[in-house]
Structures are given as structure tokens and as C-alpha cells.
């Protein structure tokens, strides 16, 4: 039952309106001045006002203005009753905040129709108000949820960070340096570098399609499988080493990648797959054997020559069982370096949407030749960040540099 407040200084009009309105089914409160009106509106929360124009102690438009200044969070619908003629009073009344007008002498059926119209507006306002309230609650819940997720992601970031090797390590005369910039807390890019046996080291770099949580979970699983330890889940070793107790036999790069490809065929093809390079380095002969599975062509920087791309592509892992894998065999010398990178670098876009590109990376690596070894990756990182214009990357960025140093260095 809608409540209507009637404001009129004439007792006769108040009685007449109250009588009619109650007959139409409304609850009615009456007052004879605008100060009492404001009081009742605030205490009873009345949303529908029928007010006379001319009253002592404050007229109808003054009441309109005061109501609009109340700043309540519900709408108050006001009908002004006027005997004034011409358009100007209407304009003034509207400017003061009235919603509608009824002229004296009051035509009761017209008044009834206008009240119904006003009631429809209030009904609409109420449902909007309800919806806004629900949206606000939803917003608060979402915010709380987001805070939880953010906190979880920070933990995940730390866990993932611990799985990556140190940015610099050296095994059997091969030095590994890494550059890593995840696009969000967790990343689909991972890499590792480890000793396989008395003369061989293994390494990999992986870019899981997409990035974020799904990609990161997959990269975590992969990092657990690509370990040289003696555990059944390891995919890179098989059986015991011929002569070295405590070591297992390292598998060739193509076998490792082919095994992964068998394992990672999903029912929903193409949603979760990855590109990678897995390699085995014989540190005595300085011969490197790697399998390129959809990962960008590595860059080879010989000590006595120009930087060049090596490799010819290859099937990503997990896309098709028809994939056949080949290995690239490269004979290196002391002082040579190899750069393995994810496409987050070459596809890194500047503010105009221009990609960093393979050629620019090749040239940049060539330029780093004259720099001291420890300055190479920081210089590359700076150039990519300068190209991007900020440190927020669209895709995960990883770069692995392997260099053949003096055997006695490590």
C-alpha cells in the first residue's frame, strides 16, 4: 500500500484529498506546512508527495527544493497543485524539483491517473535501487574474492620461482645464464639446466601455449618430469648408466620430446600444448644435440664468427601424434654461445604494435659480443623493456644463454 503525504494549509482541501485518496486505496498522512512535511518525510520515509503551491511559511516550490536537498538514497515523487496560469509556473515548479502538476479546481480522475503514473515511476525506481544494492554486494564479494586469488597467486609465484634454476650456473665448463620476465604472477615459460652424468649436461626451455594459471600448472608438471634424478616419473633418463654408479642413462633429445608428445595428447586438441627445446651437451667434445619442437630458432654466436639462426622449426608438443622429431647437432668451440628464447621476446610489441622481431634480436646479440659476459643479458633485457615502453609484458619472456667456457672455470 503506497503512502501519500498531502501538504495543504486548507483543512477543507486536506480532508477532501484524504477522503478520495483513501477511497483509492492509499495510506494518507496530512500536514499543513512544509516544515512538518519534511519532518514526516524523514521519519516515515514517504516517497509520494501531493503539495499545494501557495502556503504561509514556505510554498510548494520551496518544499520541492528542500526535498531535493535532503540527499536521501530513495526517490521522492512530487505533484504540485497549482491555480497559477501560463507556462512560467510550470517551468519554475519543474526547476524547483516537481515531477508533475495538477491544476485547480482539481479534476479527481485526472489526479488519480497522475498518481498512478507517479507510482509506476517509483516502482521502477525501487526495482533499480534493489538491483543496484545487489550489484554493490556482488562487487564487494568479487573484490574480496580477488584479494584471495591475488594472495594465492603470490604464493604460486614463489613456488614457481623456486623451481627455476639460479640465473647463473656453471656445470662442466658450460655456463648458463637466464633472463625471465613472467607476464603475470605465474608463468607458462620454464627452463632448466642440469648435470646428466660425468660428461653430459641437459637443458630445456618450454613455452606452454597461453599464459597464466592453466599454463603455469602444466609447466609445473613438466618440470617434475624433466629431472635427471632417479625416479620413475623422469622422462629424460632410462635405465642405469653403463659405468657410473648413481647415474641413469640419459636419453637422446628427440626421444625425450617424442615421449612427451605421446604423453600430452589431449582430447580437446590444441587447448593445452607447448613448444620447447630439449638438448644434451657433451662437455668433453663440446657437441650439442638438441630437438626443436615449435620453439623459435635459436641463435648461435660463435667466438670467431657472426650471430646466426640455427634449426629449422619442428612440431610443438601435444598438437599431433603424427609429429616426427629431428635433432640438430652442432659442434661448438670454447667461447661460443647459444641463445634460446621464447616468442614473448620476438613478438613483444611497442606502442605502435610493431613486433621486436627475430632480425632485431639477432642483431642485438651480435652487438653484445664486445660486452663483458655479465653485461650481455642485462643489455638485452634493457633493450626489450625500452622497445615495450614499460615493464608490463603481454606474454612470458624467457631467454637462456649457454656458453662454453674454460673447463677449469666450473
Amino acid at each position, binding site marked *: 500500500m503506497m503512502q501519500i503525504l498531502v501538504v495543504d494549509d486548507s483543512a477543507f482541501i486536506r480532508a477532501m484529498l484524504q477522503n478520495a485518496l483513501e477511497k483509492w486505496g492509499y495510506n494518507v498522512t496530512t500536514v499543513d506546512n512544509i516544515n512538518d512535511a519534511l519532518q514526516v518525510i524523514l521519519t516515515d520515509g514517504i516517497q509520494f508527495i501531493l503539495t499545494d503551491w501557495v502556503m504561509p511559511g514556505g510554498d510548494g516550490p520551496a518544499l520541492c527544493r528542500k526535498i531535493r536537498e535532503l540527499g536521501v538514497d530513495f526517490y521522492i515523487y512530487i505533484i504540485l497543485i497549482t491555480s497559477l496560469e501560463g507556462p512560467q509556473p510550470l517551468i519554475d515548479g519543474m526547476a524547483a524539483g516537481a515531477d508533475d502538476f495538477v491544476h485547480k479546481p482539481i479534476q479527481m480522475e485526472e489526479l488519480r491517473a497522475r498518481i498512478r503514473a507517479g507510482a509506476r515511476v517509483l516502482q521502477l525506481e525501487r526495482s533499480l535501487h534493489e538491483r543496484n544494492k545487489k550489484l554493490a554486494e556482488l562487487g564487494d564479494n568479487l573484490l574480496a574474492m580477488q584479494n584471495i586469488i591475488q594472495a594465492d597467486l603470490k604464493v604460486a609465484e614463489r613456488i614457481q620461482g623456486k623451481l627455476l634454476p639460479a640465473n647463473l650456473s656453471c656445470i662442466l665448463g658450460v655456463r648458463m645464464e637466464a633472463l625471465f620476465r613472467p607476464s603475470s604472477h605465474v608463468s607458462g615459460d620454464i627452463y632448466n639446466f642440469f648435470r646428466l652424468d660425468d660428461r653430459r649436461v641437459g637443458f630445456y626451455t618450454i613455452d606452454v*601455449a597461453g599464459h597464466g594459471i592453466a599454463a603455469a600448472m602444466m609447466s609445473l608438471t613438466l618440470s617434475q618430469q624433466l629431472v635427471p634424478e632417479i625416479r620413475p616419473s623422469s622422462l629424460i633418463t632410462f635405465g642405469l648408466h653403463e659405468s657410473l654408479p648413481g647415474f641413469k642413462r640419459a636419453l637422446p633429445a628427440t626421444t625425450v620430446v617424442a615421449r612427451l608428445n605421446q604423453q600430452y595428447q589431449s582430447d580437446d*586438441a590444441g*587447448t593445452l600444448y607447448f613448444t620447447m627445446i630439449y638438448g644434451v651437451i657433451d662437455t668433453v667434445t663440446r657437441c650439442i644435440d638438441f630437438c626443436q619442437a615449435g620453439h623459435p630458432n635459436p641463435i648461435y654466436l660463435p667466438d670467431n664468427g657472426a650471430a646466426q639462426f640455427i634449426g629449422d622449426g619442428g612440431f610443438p608438443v601435444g598438437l599431433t601424434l603424427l609429429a616426427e622429431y629431428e635433432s640438430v647437432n652442432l659442434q661448438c668451440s670454447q667461447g661460443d654461445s647459444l641463445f634460446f628464447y621464447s616468442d614473448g621476446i620476438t613478438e613483444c610489441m611497442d606502442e605502435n604494435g610493431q613486433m621486436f622481431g627475430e632480425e632485431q634480436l639477432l642483431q642485438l646479440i651480435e652487438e653484445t659480443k664486445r660486452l663483458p659476459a655479465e653485461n650481455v643479458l642485462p643489455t638485452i633485457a634493457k633493450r626489450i623493456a625500452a622497445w615495450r615502453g614499460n615493464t608490463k609484458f603481454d606474454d612470458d619472456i624467457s631467454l637462456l644463454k649457454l656458453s662454453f667456457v674454460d673447463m677449469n672455470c666450473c
Partner: protein
Amino acid sequence: MRIATKQVKGVLVLVLNESRLDANVAEPFKEAFQQSLSEGHETIAIDMGKIGFIDSSGLGAIVNCLKKIGPDGKLVLFGITPPVASMFKITRMDRVFNLHNNEEEALQAFEI
């Protein structure tokens, strides 16, 4: 994902009216393709002429199409731009997909 469709000589041609086939449109693209399959189309040609960039998610989506169409259907791509071609080359997808230069050649592939 803006995709225009037309039928030419019994072949459904999907024209990808986007400049990028990436993570943002991969899912809608897969859904649109699935929709075409459930409408009974088995011979489909995709016009890639406007796609100037494809990322790993986009590549995954298009491989998904190939798997979904199955052994009885036929999927042909045409109008591949150089950046997409180099992505196909590095991932060997140029050996997996039936690629043609233009619509005319693509449609001829269905006549054989």
C-alpha cells in the same frame, strides 16, 4: 570474433574478419567452427587473408578445427599472410594443413 560465412559449390567458406587470431578470439573461433560442424558442414574452407598475426592459442584453435572435422570431412585454409606462414613453418603446421593461395584454388581442392 567476426566471421562471415558463405557457401560456394557446396563448400562452407568461413571468412575471418579479424586482424589477429590470438588468445582473445581463440575460444569464440573454436565455438563458431563447432557450430558449423553441428549444422552438418563437412567441407570447410577458411579465409585467413585478414589475419596478420597468430599466437600459440590461435594456432591451437585452428589445429582443434582440423581434429574436430575428422576423417570424413575436409578442411582447407587459404590466403595465409607472411607472419602466419612463418608461424606455420616453424611449427611444421604447413605440413599438416591443406594450404592454398586463394579462394579459387582452395575450392578446386574440393573437386578432386
